[in-house]
């Protein structure tokens, strides 16, 4: 019976998905550039500087999404998942670092134009800095731990810590007095006070960043996994199942491959 979802353990499936994601990200990225720089009107108060939001917001969104993937991968690793999950988490962690740093750079540039300062001790800025540093720690821990089981578990714990910080960052502008504006789109009333053309430019940029981020994680996953197809790695329930009694040459070959990969 064919699986309902594409089997990401198959290299051919991953590469086909990468190509689709890459082309879609390129096309939507070009559309986002045209919409953000040429079509969308300048802001009535902020002028042209508001166009930085078409990078700042998608970068922050993609960074948070990457941390969510890190969280899922971390849970899977702690439940006994193997190299697929630790590799997925590593790629997503790198993406999170890049996107959160980019969101920071754009926000800082915009802040210098709008607030007159590059940095201030604001709850949103401080909590985002903590999240960015935690993500850097996640990637660094993954590198230091090598491919050992213990290293993967330690890395997963740092990943869960990063995931726990995301809601604090998002709600920091509501919980504490902040100069950072509250959410424009993801707010309780769901009525976005934004010009329709600006909203279109923002949404297309969010789609472009999301697709490009997915492409990056897929590529990094493909680089870290073996070039040949292998069986899905066991999670806890499968790993504890008794080993089959009958074994042939194929089984010995699979065990050898797994030993090399450990």
């Amino acid at each position, binding site marked *: 019976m064919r699986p309902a979802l594409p089997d990401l353990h198959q290299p051919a499936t991953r590469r086909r998905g990468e190509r689709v994601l890459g082309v879609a990200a390129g096309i939507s990225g070009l559309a986002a550039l045209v919409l953000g*720089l040429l079509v969308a009107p300048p802001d009535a108060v902020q*002028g*042209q*500087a508001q*166009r*930085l939001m078409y*990078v*700042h917001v998608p*970068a922050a969104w993609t960074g948070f999404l990457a941390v969510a993937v890190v969280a899922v991968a971390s849970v899977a690793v702690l439940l006994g998942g193997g190299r697929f999950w630790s590799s997925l988490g*590593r790629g997503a962690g*790198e*993406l999170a670092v*890049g996107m959160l*740093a*980019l969101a920071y*750079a*754009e926000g800082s*540039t*915009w802040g*210098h*134009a709008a607030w007159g300062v590059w940095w201030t001790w604001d709850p949103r800025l401080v909590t985002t800095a903590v999240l960015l540093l935690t993500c850097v720690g996640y990637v660094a821990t993954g*590198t230091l731990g090598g491919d050992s089981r213990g290293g993967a578990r330690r890395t997963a714990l740092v990943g869960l810590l990063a995931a726990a910080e995301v809601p604090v960052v998002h709600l920091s502008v509501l919980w504490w007095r902040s100069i950072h504006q509250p959410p424009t789109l993801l707010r309780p009333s769901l009525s976005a006070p934004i010009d329709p053309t600006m909203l279109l430019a923002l949404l297309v940029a969010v789609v472009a960043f999301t697709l*490009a981020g997915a*492409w*990056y994680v897929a*590529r*990094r996953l493909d*680089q*870290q996994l073996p070039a040949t197809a292998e069986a899905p790695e066991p999670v806890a329930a499968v790993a504890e199942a008794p080993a089959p009694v009958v074994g042939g040459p194929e089984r010995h070959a699979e065990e050898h491959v797994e030993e090399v990969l450990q």
Partner: protein
Amino acid sequence: MTGWGVVALGYAVAGLVWLTLVLRARGGTRGARHR
């Protein structure tokens, strides 16, 4: 620095970040390929 100068700086930084990620994802660095 105001107006389009800020926009140019911001989009240039974004371009550099994405270029770095694309090069890493395409295996352009030794560390990316081996880790």
